[in-house]
């Protein structure tokens, strides 16, 4: 598990090791640490780079620091996993699984932290929730319910983003609807009814299209 201070130190180290200035979006639990939520540590650090080239600079820097490549599946949306002892970095390029990084996500970035050559952009809590819906892990649902509990989530933003994503990836609305259902039933999350209704409509539309 990586805590905020440890994450900060490793980012500084990476920033000093990178030979070119590289910008990335910090997503998932690692982004949550920047927000002072009650979550105090994360299992892995997830980063999204604009291109494969930028990701390669990062891989090179992590390699110099002693990280080893663990999983490497070629193709967009698939992460490169770098590991060192109990630390894990998942590095994406352009997409997170089949989820595209839209202009909206980049525009809603809340903080930009410069660690020498590494510029970390912290995505908004709304986007953290959306990206958490792309996986099926219990921990991700727990994190999302924590965000919903601890801040006022702008659901309109989430709905717009899911609608946009559904145009490229029909699974987006389906996955997000399942995700919301889990949050309501298993985590007792306070999600407005009309939001669930709208996502359900999108979900039904997508299911019909898939049939």
């Amino acid at each position: 598990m990586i805590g905020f201070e440890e994450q900060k130190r490793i980012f500084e180290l990476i920033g000093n090791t990178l030979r070119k200035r590289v910008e990335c979006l910090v997503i998932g639990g690692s982004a949550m640490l920047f927000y002072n939520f009650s979550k105090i540590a994360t299992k892995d650090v997830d980063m999204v780079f604009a291109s494969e080239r930028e990701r390669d600079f990062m891989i090179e820097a992590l390699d110099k620091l002693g990280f080893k490549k663990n999983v490497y599946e070629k193709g967009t949306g698939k992460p490169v996993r770098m590991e060192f002892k109990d630390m894990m970095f998942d590095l994406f390029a352009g997409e997170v699984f089949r989820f595209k990084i839209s202009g909206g996500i980049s525009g809603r970035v809340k903080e930009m932290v410069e660690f020498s050559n590494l510029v970390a952009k912290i995505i908004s809590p709304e986007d953290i929730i959306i990206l958490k819906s792309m996986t099926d892990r219990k921990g991700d649902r727990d994190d999302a319910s924590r965000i919903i509990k601890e801040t006022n989530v702008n659901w309109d933003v989430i709905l717009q983003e899911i609608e946009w994503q559904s145009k490229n990836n029909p699974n987006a609305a389906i996955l997000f609807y399942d995700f919301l259902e889990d949050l309501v039933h298993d985590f007792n999350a306070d999600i407005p009814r009309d939001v669930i209704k709208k996502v359900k409509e999108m979900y039904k539309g997508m299911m019909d299209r898939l049939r």
Partner: protein
Amino acid sequence: MRLEEKWRETAKEVEGIYSVEALAKRMGVGKRTAVNYVHELRKKGFVETMRGKRGKRLYKINPLRLRNIGNPGIYDLLNRYSSLKLQSGVRERIVGYRIEKPEELLVRALLTRDFRVVLSAVELFRIIKDWKYLYSLAKKHKLERFIAALYFLSRRYFRVRRMDHRMLNMIRKSKIKERYLIPNIESSDFKDIQKEWGVFLPFNKSDMDRLRVKK
């Protein structure tokens, strides 16, 4: 419920920007109690104080607390020095390094190639003293001619320390690598400056008038 959670819940309930009076009304309490609430919320990091019209104190209450990390970025620093205040939805921080000198701030601002940031940075010429350092930074980023053009532009609007003539000579000898400071934006005013330095300035007279600097 832990105390921290209780205050977070309060911040979540009243999220927004308020004067003390407005907050008291919103919470249905007296003005004194509202001040006490603000005091407690601030201690937990949920309140940021802002200034409204005629310097009125406003409180921005937000349950979302970004951690205090590193040193201020260029937006915060420019707002400290310039009369043209910049608003940004993104908080910028720099870890492990502090921008100490206005010369560096100016070059970093030009590198953003953002119209408002560059306009706000023009005012830094009022406090720039270390021309040698400025030249070395500008040369590194191939911005020498833009620096010279902006320097002569700023001299028309406010008092600026005289630039070292050796530096001006060196800039005159430098090659023109890039003509646009901000891609595809050129000024219809200040033709003489643009011609002399072989670069396009992005500002017109009306833009420069937005800088409320005393001559």
